[in-house]
């Protein structure tokens, strides 16, 4: 979320690669998607992927996540929540993948700190 938000501002205010309709309802949809749904989904997927032992499975999951990011942007454009301009749609996935890298780094950092705190891998139950 901390990385996702500035990226949207960069697209919207700095580069004008997206334009948004002057509608509060559309703004709410955009905010809920970018601030809640997208970060939650990315963090959940990465948390699950990190415990996968096989590299090929992890790589496939990362590729699928990138495809999902692109699909999210494309759908927002189709539904009129945002409108991509210029290189917007082309650069959307590469720049948004920074979110993926940041989420990966933060998940790894927290797991490392958990080990430093004396909590081993897979000891936390989800119940």
């Amino acid at each position: 979320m901390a990385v996702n938000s500035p990226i949207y501002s960069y697209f919207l205010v700095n580069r004008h690669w997206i334009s948004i309709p002057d509608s509060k309802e559309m703004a709410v949809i955009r905010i809920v998607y970018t601030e809640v749904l997208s970060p939650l989904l990315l963090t959940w997927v990465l948390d699950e992927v990190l415990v996968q032992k096989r590299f090929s499975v992890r790589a496939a999951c990362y590729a699928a996540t990138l495809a999902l990011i692109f699909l999210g942007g494309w759908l927002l454009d189709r539904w009129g929540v945002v409108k991509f301009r210029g290189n917007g749609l082309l650069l959307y996935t590469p720049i948004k993948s920074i979110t993926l890298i940041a989420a990966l780094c933060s998940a790894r950092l927290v797991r490392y700190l958990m080990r430093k705190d004396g909590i081993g891998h897979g000891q936390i139950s989800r119940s």
Partner: protein
Amino acid sequence: MVRFPEVNVWFSTFFFAAGWVLVALLPLRLPRSVSALVMMLSLALPLGMDHTIGVPPVDMYDTNVNPKLTFSELPTWGMYPVFGYLFIYLYDKWNIKGPAIALYVFGWAIVGTAFEALAVAFHVFRYKGWSLRYSYLVYVLVQLLTVAVFRLLMHVFVRTKKANP
């Protein structure tokens, strides 16, 4: 020609540096993983606000004079986790429970609002329809959420430690 940073950047940089020095000097009290998660939450929530209600079509305020995203935002972002960490550090140190939580949250919301007023005076924030009264309400809600998340994290941490000594 060399352009010196404006007063807002000096203000953010000073409090960013002073805050992190203070965090480093404080004795380690909380589990590292819990501290990191509290800091991430304290960074994510205000950033989420800055880039939702701070951009069109809502656009209630600008950060750091220029509405565009610039490197001058970095020290401002660096102040947010320090604020959240100190809030939770003292909450834990003073062992605040029951109705005292409400008093603590209201007190910290006053501190946060006063600091924001100072930041506004130094042009770190420029209001365009926002008000310090709204900030106070946001601080109360965010700090209550932070307390709830911290208690949940500590509950999971203590339970896991007990189960795996």
